[in-house]
C-alpha cells in the first residue's frame, strides 16, 4: 500500500481511465484504436488501483476467477459472432446495412463517422476489449500474488 497522495490520485483517475478505455473500444470502427488498445487502457486503470492499494486489499475487490471468466466470455462472444454468419461464410458481416443493431447505411462522401454502422465490427471490438481486459488483469494479479512486500 502506498502513501495517501498516491491513493487519492488513484481514486480520482480510476473512473476517467475506465471511461476513456471504453470510449476507445466503442469507437473502434471510427477512430484510431480498437479492442486491444481499449482493453489495454482499461487494464492500466486496474494496474493503477493494484499499485496504489496493494494485493491484500485488492484481492477482495477484484477476483482472479472473475477476470478469467471475463476473458473466456470475451473469446466466446468473438467466436460466436463469427459462427452466426456461417450460412454465408465464416466471419460474414450479417449486420451491415441490415437496419438492425449497428446496421445503418453509411452515406457517401466525407462524413464525421456514425456510431450505428459497420455491422458486427463493434460487437467484435467489444468482445476483444473485454477479453484483453480480463487477460491483462489476470497477468497483473498473478504478478502480484507471489512473494511478500519488503517494507522500507
Amino acid at each position: 500500500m502506498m502513501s495517501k497522495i498516491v491513493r487519492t490520485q488513484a481514486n480520482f483517475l480510476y473512473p476517467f481511465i475506465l471511461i476513456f478505455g471504453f470510449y476507445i473500444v466503442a469507437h473502434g470502427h471510427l477512430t484510431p484504436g480498437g479492442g486491444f488498445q481499449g482493453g489495454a487502457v482499461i487494464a492500466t486503470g486496474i494496474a493503477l488501483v493494484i499499485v496504489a492499494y496493494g494485493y491484500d486489499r485488492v484481492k477482495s475487490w477484484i477476483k482472479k476467477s472473475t477476470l478469467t471468466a471475463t476473458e473466456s466470455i470475451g473469446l466466446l462472444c468473438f467466436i460466436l459472432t463469427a459462427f452466426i454468419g456461417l450460412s454465408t461464410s465464416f466471419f460474414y458481416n450479417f449486420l451491415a446495412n441490415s437496419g438492425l443493431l449497428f446496421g445503418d447505411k453509411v452515406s457517401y462522401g466525407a462524413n464525421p463517422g456514425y456510431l450505428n454502422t459497420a455491422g458486427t465490427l463493434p460487437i467484435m471490438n467489444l468482445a476483444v476489449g473485454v477479453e484483453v481486459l480480463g487477460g491483462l488483469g489476470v497477468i497483473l494479479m498473478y504478478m502480484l500474488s507471489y512473494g511478500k512486500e519488503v517494507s522500507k
Partner: protein
Amino acid sequence: MILDIIHILVLIGLIATAYLAVKLRDLMACAVMLGIFSFLLSLEFFILQAPDVAIAEAGIGAGLTTAIFVMAIRKTSRWEVEE
C-alpha cells in the same frame, strides 16, 4: 518547421531517458525513466502518423510495464548493489 523541432526534441529525450534508465542506481527512478521512454516513443509514433500504435504503446509500455516493474521492485530491493 515546428513539427521538426518537436521531432528532434522527442528523439533527444528518447536517448536521454534510455541512458538514464541504464545509469541510475535507484531502480524506482529507472522504472519511471522507462515509463517516460515509452511515453516519448508513443509521441514519436503519433508524429509518424501511426495513432493506433501510439495508443497501444501508451497503454502497454507506459502503463502496464511500469506497474509491473514497480510491483517487482517493491517485492525485492530498491537500490542496485555492486556484486
